[in-house]
């Protein structure tokens, strides 16, 4: 066999495999990795269970049913308004100021509902005011407020602020609703 053909054979054997399936050098620690992966999965499971229990404990301790009010925020298409920030007032007292990242705005537009604020409120008639800011129609700075009066009873109160596009008026619309 000539030196040239030897080179060719060697080259093809190495290069073909490497080029078809990558140039990895083939370290294998599969068994060790699998054992470790099992361990990581078990830990994740236990930490999640713990966090679940603590989530419930936190609600029981800090936001009992009799006083709890939770405010959610959702958006739909967002052609006429892009949410930058929201300010929330409960009985004229500012309870939340939230600035949104691009990723959070996208999460809302994909159907996510943000738990914007949870707090304690005494029984009786209460007023919630939300002020939304962000670029509105034609990209101009837009600020809109909406208020909602509700009766806080002995059960938990869930309120949703929803920003929708009102196609007929080419304007965003801010709707407040109570969840049962």
């Amino acid at each position, binding site marked *: 066999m000539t030196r*040239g053909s030897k*080179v*060719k054979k060697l*080259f*093809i054997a*190495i*290069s*073909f495999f*490497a*080029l*078809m399936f*990558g*140039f*990895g*050098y*083939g*370290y294998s*620690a599969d068994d*060790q*990795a699998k054992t*470790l*992966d099992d*361990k*990581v*999965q078990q*830990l*994740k*499971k*236990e*930490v*999640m269970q*713990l*966090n*679940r*229990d*603590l*989530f*419930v*404990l*936190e609600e029981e*301790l*800090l936001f009992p049913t009799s006083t709890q009010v*939770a405010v*959610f925020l*959702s958006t739909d298409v967002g052609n006429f308004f892009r949410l930058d920030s929201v300010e929330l007032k409960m009985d004229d007292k500012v309870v939340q100021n939230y600035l949104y990242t691009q*990723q*959070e705005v*996208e*999460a*809302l537009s*994909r*159907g*996510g*509902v*943000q*738990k914007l604020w949870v707090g304690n409120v005494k029984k009786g008639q209460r007023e919630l005011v939300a002020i939304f800011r962000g670029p509105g129609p034609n990209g101009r700075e837009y600020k809109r407020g909406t208020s909602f009066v509700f009766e806080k009873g002995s059960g938990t109160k*869930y309120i*949703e602020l929803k920003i929708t596009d009102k196609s007929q008026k080419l304007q965003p619309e801010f709707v407040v609703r109570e*969840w049962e």
Partner: protein
Amino acid sequence: MKGQRSIFFYLLRVTAICVLASCAGQALAKDYFDKKEIVVKDPFFGDALYDYYSGNTFDAIIKLIVAKDLGRVPNHQEDVDIWLGSLYLSYGMHYQAEAVFKRLIEEGASPEIRDRAWLQLAKVRYQKGLYEDAIRAIEEIQENIPEELMGATQLQMANVLMARGEYQQAADMLLKFPRNDQFSQYVNYNLGVALFRSDRQIEGTEYLDAVGLASADDEELKALRDKANIALGYVLLANDDFPRAKAYFQRVRVSGPFSNKALLGLGWADAFQQDYRRALAPWLELSTRTLSDAAVYESLLAVPYAYERLQAYQQSLQAYETAITTFSNDLSRLNVAIEMVQNGKLWEQLLNNISTQESKITWGLEDLPPEIEPRFVYTLVSGHSFQQSIDSLRHLIYLNNSLSKQADNMETFQYILDLRKETYEERLPQLAPEQGDHRMALLKDERNLYMEEYKRIEREGDLKALANDKEQNQIERLEKIQDILRRHRHDMDPKLYRETLAKYRLYSGILEWEIGTTIAPRLWKIKKALRELDNELEQATRQQQILHRARLSAPRSFEGYGQKIAGYSKKIDSLQRRVQETIEEQKQLMEQQVLSELQILQQRIASYLDQAKFAKAHLLDLGANQGGVN
């Protein structure tokens, strides 16, 4: 150095794209699942989706578990399970995902959900390498299913078959797959590979050729096109079809991630036809490039080999000397890099980048210590297995952060509890329920007296008792007049007496008439007042009972929460220890992988160095014998 690094980051990105391309089936299935339109009917379901879409899968899973356990998602019961299973899967928790999907199926989910669950389960089993089980799961999927689900199922099946080495069956399945969307090039590529592997080279060439000629708008498809051309080029080289091989290599973009491999192949296609002069052009270009992969290293040996074949011994000798210097320098750099890894310096930057937000914890080649050049490890780091290890490490660090946060929360909860206990103990004497009981008993007696009086008035028709304040005043004045008249009857002028008596009788009559004609509303008013009193007393009794219960339960509640907090604190401590140990194990495993990668590369370069030294010695021998090279 900076420019060199940026080339590697680019290569990493493109390599990752290619890894994705080879897993096109999985990507498609996930894409269909993610695109399923979600109408949120329970806010807590939407809350979990918000976290997931914001990049916090961990929080999304916990929120779904809580929402399900507390019955807060009555309108999304099936959705919750399928989402939970999928989120477990994307968080690397295959066992949990499988348990959720199995439960969903056992509980008799709707046909669509059941089929989606089987498909997800097949994916889990495929990822775990349980190919037989994956096929069984796919076989459970009904035939009459939506087109998009059918497509995802077929691609999954093809992936499993290819993983089992059943390329013939995989090819048959992919041949039936409709090519009407953006994934058709990936299907064609997989099909081409499957056909090649089942010895149907002519058909395989057709599909890979189609991919290699397809128009591509984005980087992913361009990379896939290059990959197809490279694969065909090397197949044809192996088949001694050098002109056609060259044509495929020439289709590959000069600046793309596969250009090094293409240049090397192009040179060999000419060299195998004894055209070393032509072979030199791509090899010389390749030899000036960054030493990013085996193709560039090999060009350093290929160039002097071509010069030697062209009998340009002086240039060949110089090129071998350049190669020897380059290989020696890289060996020194590798020695330093190996030492760095052995001294545990690999993770310094990662540990500095730790963030409390899950989506913000990242680690990439840019985080390597400067002594470990990215080109040495990018193949490993961009590989699926290593990326999974990075994910595990990121997740473990996030778990550790989460546990630290929870440990702080426990202190806060305990503080709140202590504060409440203190306030309770301070107020307890003022709220002594026994005193309240006594007051309540007196009030009830009083109420009973009023009721008795009401009954008497009603029974006796006691108009006087029904008079209001003004009328009472008038009655008193009339009674005084009556008394005066009685006492002074004989002293008074008879005429005045008669007139006064008449007036007295008139006013008394009017008053009696006014009261007598309004007995019913007056009695109703008293009855209403008594009813209101009863209600107030009832509410006060309830409050009193609550106070009694609170007094009994509060200490138990404080104690219960105290015990819970203490128990959770212990659990947090123990989990933190285990997580930290596992972080160390994970880091060690990855360090071993990097170390092994570096050592294998070290051996490989050492071998190149030996070859270069041997070839140089051979040339010098030749020169000594012929008197031409020195």
